[in-house]
């Protein structure tokens, strides 16, 4: 089962960290309906993260709880991609990020319904509905913003450009993913790429936007615990209270 734990941890950390970023939007969205929608997406992701982290603690033999894993791991032990840890920026950036991430998660969970790990397969089954909604939500906004006003078109395009360097990492195959795929627990990220990005491309075109060219640089290493500058600050904020009271219950 040692191949399953680190693989699932990557998925769990993606969901947890993105939920954390979405939590920052609440009370800051462009309209109240959107405060609710982003809270909803965040809650779904947090729910996924909680079940997956609990599963990691069972599988890796440490018996750690979801909270042990969320609050008492250091930056180098987090396995999420860089996309989700980037600072909250404008709404255009957020919708570009959500469209990309949800499109990835749709393909991911669709495939993982056949995981040999029953918990992961169960999460995938339930989460697929959630992330399909997330993808639709982001799709609607990208269409509105791309094909809305001149300003919104420009800002949405900037959002796409800003997200572009973080896309490739979602589909990187690493040792962990290979082993998990081999064992039937996971799926090779590279196999999700065409379908996921196909959806993104279709939306971008319908929205009268332009797909960003190949970025000058691309993020790497999140799955190996190599993170970008915002991650340490995110963890400081997320973990500070829990770490200030070791052993306490809440």
């Amino acid at each position, binding site marked *: 089962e040692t191949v399953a734990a680190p693989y699932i941890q990557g998925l769990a950390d993606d969901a947890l960290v993105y939920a*954390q970023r979405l939590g920052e939007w609440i009370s800051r969205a462009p*309209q*109240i309906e959107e405060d609710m929608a982003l*809270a909803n997406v965040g809650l779904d992701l947090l729910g996924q*993260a909680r079940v997956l982290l609990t599963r990691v603690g069972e599988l890796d033999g440490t018996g750690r709880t979801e*909270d042990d894993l969320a609050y008492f791991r250091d930056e180098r032990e987090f396995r999420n991609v860089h996309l989700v840890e980037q600072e909250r920026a404008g709404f255009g950036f957020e919708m570009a990020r959500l469209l990309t991430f949800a499109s990835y998660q749709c393909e991911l969970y669709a495939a993982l319904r056949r995981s040999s790990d029953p918990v992961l397969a169960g999460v995938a089954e339930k989460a697929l509905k959630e992330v399909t909604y997330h993808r639709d939500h982001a799709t609607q906004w990208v269409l509105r913003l791309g*094909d809305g006003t001149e300003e919104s078109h420009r*800002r949405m395009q900037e959002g796409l450009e800003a997200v572009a360097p973080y896309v490739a990492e979602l589909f990187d195959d690493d040792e962990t993913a290979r082993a998990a795929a081999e064992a039937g627990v996971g799926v090779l990220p590279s196999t999700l790429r065409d379908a996921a990005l196909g959806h993104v491309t279709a939306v971008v075109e319908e929205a009268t936007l332009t797909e960003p060219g190949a970025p000058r640089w691309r993020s790497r290493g999140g799955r190996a615990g190599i993170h970008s500058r915002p991650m340490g600050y995110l963890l400081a904020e997320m973990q500070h*209270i829990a770490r200030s009271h070791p052993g306490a219950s809440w």
Partner: protein
Amino acid sequence: AAESGLFDDLIEADQRIEPRDEMPEAYRQTLIRQIAQHAHSEIIGMQPEGNWITRAPSLRRKAILMAKVQDEAGHGLYLYSAAETLGVDRAELLDRLHSGKQKYSSIFNYPTLTWADCGAIGWLVDGAAIMNQVPLCRCSYGPYARAMIRVCKEESFHQRQGFEILWTLMRGTEEQQEMAQDAANRWWWPSLMMFGPPDTGEAAQGGHTEQSMAWGIKRFSNDDLRQKFVDMMVPQAEKLGLVLPDPELRWNEERGHYDFGPIDWDEFWRVLKGDGPCNAERLTHRRAAHEEGAWVREAATAYAAKQAARERRGSAA
């Protein structure tokens, strides 16, 4: 012509007034002001707890808190919709909030300093809100009454969650207990102020209470509600093991109520007038979100117009 009589008949019979019914302009304006202020309070009320979403000390609590703040946004939406049935629109009401022309509950001008404040807000602030709101479920204006039924159901859920946060803290480490007690110390008096200034006895001076009561908008005086709240909370505080910060608080056998000490109304008026710890911060935060989101709302409007035009062209073809 007989319709202005209808309004009085409906009120008399304790029936609901509905949006299409004739109603006195003063009734309409009173309701708009009250419902809007209530909606604004829900929206501004997202901030003090929203402040803790990223720092909640367990994932379970984080999820509960996110859902709670989301509920507050939902309450704001129901209430703005209820106000809209009276012929104003949400954008206009938000402008009045942002320009300071309409108020929100002063309780949200206090800061949330520790995690325990999320418990105290749920327990005390939502508790006081429910006490204020339950009678509004029988308000004479139908849409408001129906919105309040929905809101109250969720609020009582939030109140239990707040109680549970404090309950857990009071059974935790010494530091956690101190945190809970400190939160209770800071939130107790402001929550008593939530019922508004005295509106009975000598202190009451020409407020809206009498008219609102006659119209079936208000059912109890501020002081009655405050007393009910104190009577409800004291036993809960005992159960929690919290000491409420009022040396004069004691059971009065004769009155069948708890006596409590004098409220610092100077503080109340000061905060109401804008000099509270967080007035400026809350409005600045809210305005910033609104202004930063303007281009998004404009885009949505423009897109909807384009879509409608496309559909017209489509059906014409």
